[in-house]
């Protein structure tokens, strides 16, 4: 049936013979299928491009998929997405609990993949397409991975449209108000100026949006020339990268060195140093300071060079939490409050690969550790990419297709 080719199914389960067969059958039935065994990856995929249906395996011994299920049910972009749970849970009370949690269907393992495909078909028979990737009566919806804020504004600018662009990054929502193609207002939590709120939302490259065409109150436009604004925003981001180039990761915890004399410091430096009496990250310090982000960074850089600030060692579990997606699903603490600091957290400087953060499996890795080094040396250099994505794309263009 041709309509099935428009449906995207996400399968979250460890690969096995029956899962493989299920994936193949779903593809043969014309569905677009994505598979992952990792719940964090599944969450990331949902945020980037909400599927039309999710099949998730729940194993009582492994809470991660249960957490994923709950998050999917509560999140804006997936709360109305049907979810089929597969489970080995023999206890009927567990099965009832899953249904009460909001599962649209439940299949016991081991299953015949054909049965699951049939149930998927039944769901789609009665199901209206989710909010994402659907045209609404007076606007449209989609995901920011395919169409970012600049694209959206340019679209409205072309048609001289008025309306509101609602953005959702996963942990945060914001709105941009457009009057006849010009930006007249921008609202996002913790940003008290239109300009900063807008710049902040420019960098939301993952998440969802919906646009409603409507009349908006006429305020003075942010700018008469949107393109100039976009060009300058890019330069601001470049400038930030340049300043942060000589600093450790913005998530690095620093602390003031107490036994060094600080009487030669100016007022700004003293104030910033005081902020590090207790260990805190660079971003936290900037958020709470009264200075512009770039000025704040320069002060911190100067304090580091003077040896008045040192890096605080972070425990393994804290490092893992930083790199995890918990801050994107709103369950983790909100770290970033205002100004540009939020923009650049997205770039996740010194993002560590999974291998470095995944703990060694105790028994097998213990045996293997005798044979080969599996733990990275502490003094390993972590290079950052010193060009922007745009510059890399330019290089790529020059190299040819």
């Amino acid at each position, binding site marked *: 049936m041709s309509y099935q080719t428009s449906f995207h199914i996400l399968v979250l389960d460890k690969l096995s013979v029956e899962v493989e067969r299920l994936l193949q059958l779903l593809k043969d039935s014309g569905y677009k299928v994505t598979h992952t065994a990792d719940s964090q990856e599944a969450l990331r995929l949902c945020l980037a491009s909400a599927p039309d249906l999710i099949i998730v395996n729940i194993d009582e011994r492994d809470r991660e998929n249960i957490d994923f299920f709950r998050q999917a049910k509560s999140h804006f972009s997936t709360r109305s997405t049907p979810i089929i749970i597969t489970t080995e849970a023999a206890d009927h009370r567990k099965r009832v609990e899953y249904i009460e949690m909001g599962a649209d269907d439940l299949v016991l393992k081991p299953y015949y993949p054909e049965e699951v495909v049939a149930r998927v078909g039944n769901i789609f028979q009665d199901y209206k397409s989710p909010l994402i990737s659907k045209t609404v009566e007076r606007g449209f919806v989609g995901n920011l991975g395919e169409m970012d804020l600049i694209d959206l504004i340019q679209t409205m600018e072309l048609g001289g449209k008025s309306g509101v662009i609602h953005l959702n990054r996963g942990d945060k929502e914001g709105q941009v108000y457009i009057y006849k193609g010009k930006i007249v207002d921008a609202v996002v939590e913790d940003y008290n100026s239109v300009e900063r709120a807008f710049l902040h939302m420019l960098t939301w490259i993952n998440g969802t949006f919906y646009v409603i065409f409507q009349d908006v109150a006429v305020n003075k436009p942010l700018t008469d020339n949107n393109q100039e604004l976009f060009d300058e925003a890019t*330069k601001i981001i470049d400038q930030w990268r340049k300043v942060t180039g000589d600093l450790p990761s913005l998530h690095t915890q620093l602390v003031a060195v107490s036994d060094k004399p600080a009487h030669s410091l100016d007022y700004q430096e003293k104030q910033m140093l005081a902020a590090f009496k207790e260990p805190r990250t660079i971003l936290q310090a900037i958020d709470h300071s009264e200075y512009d982000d770039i000025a704040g960074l320069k002060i911190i850089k100067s304090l580091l060079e003077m040896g008045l600030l040192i890096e605080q060692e972070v425990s393994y579990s804290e490092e893992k939490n930083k790199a995890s997606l918990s801050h994107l699903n709103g369950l983790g603490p909100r770290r970033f409050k205002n100004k540009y600091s939020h923009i650049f957290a997205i770039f996740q400087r010194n993002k560590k690969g999974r291998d470095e953060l995944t703990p060694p499996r105790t028994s097998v890795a213990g045996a293997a550790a005798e044979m080969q080094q599996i733990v990275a*040396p502490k003094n390993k*250099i972590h*290079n950052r990419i010193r*060009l922007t994505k745009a*510059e*890399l794309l*330019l*290089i790529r263009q020059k190299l040819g297709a």
Partner: protein
Amino acid sequence: MSFLSIQKDTHRIGEFIVAGPSLTLQKRFITHLCNEVIITNNNTVFGRSKVTDELQLFFYGIGEKEQYVDFAWDLLAPKMLGYILVFNWYDGNEFSSAQQLLDELSSQIDCHGIVVGDVSEMSLPIDPKIYEQGFSFSPKLYFTLWDSTIKSDAKNVLKILVDSLINHFE
């Protein structure tokens, strides 16, 4: 704009180290890609390639056995965009050297890189489409084969490396 200040960088530079047991291959790689190339008496190769008025690529071909090599790595490695490790695909000794260097690099530095085996010595019976996209060892480390006498092969090597850098942002 009163709330946005404009600052212009005059030069943006992307730096790559080209390394491996064969200086000849380093020279060939850099020469294929660069407008300006200097080869010093100490067997170091410098190359510069202009992408735009504001963006340039620098390539440093450092030898293997010379005394200064460790020092060169110390200076250049922390700021490089990535490295290209070239060796003769058919030469067992060169392969062993490259393998050792690769293990050392990957344990010392977390960086994008590509390992490239040169097949110019004899014709390879494998369809290029099989290897020209590259094979990954990890999200940052790739492998491919090339014919060091062909400029487009050198470009392809750099393409794979640049693609891995671009993917890092995604």
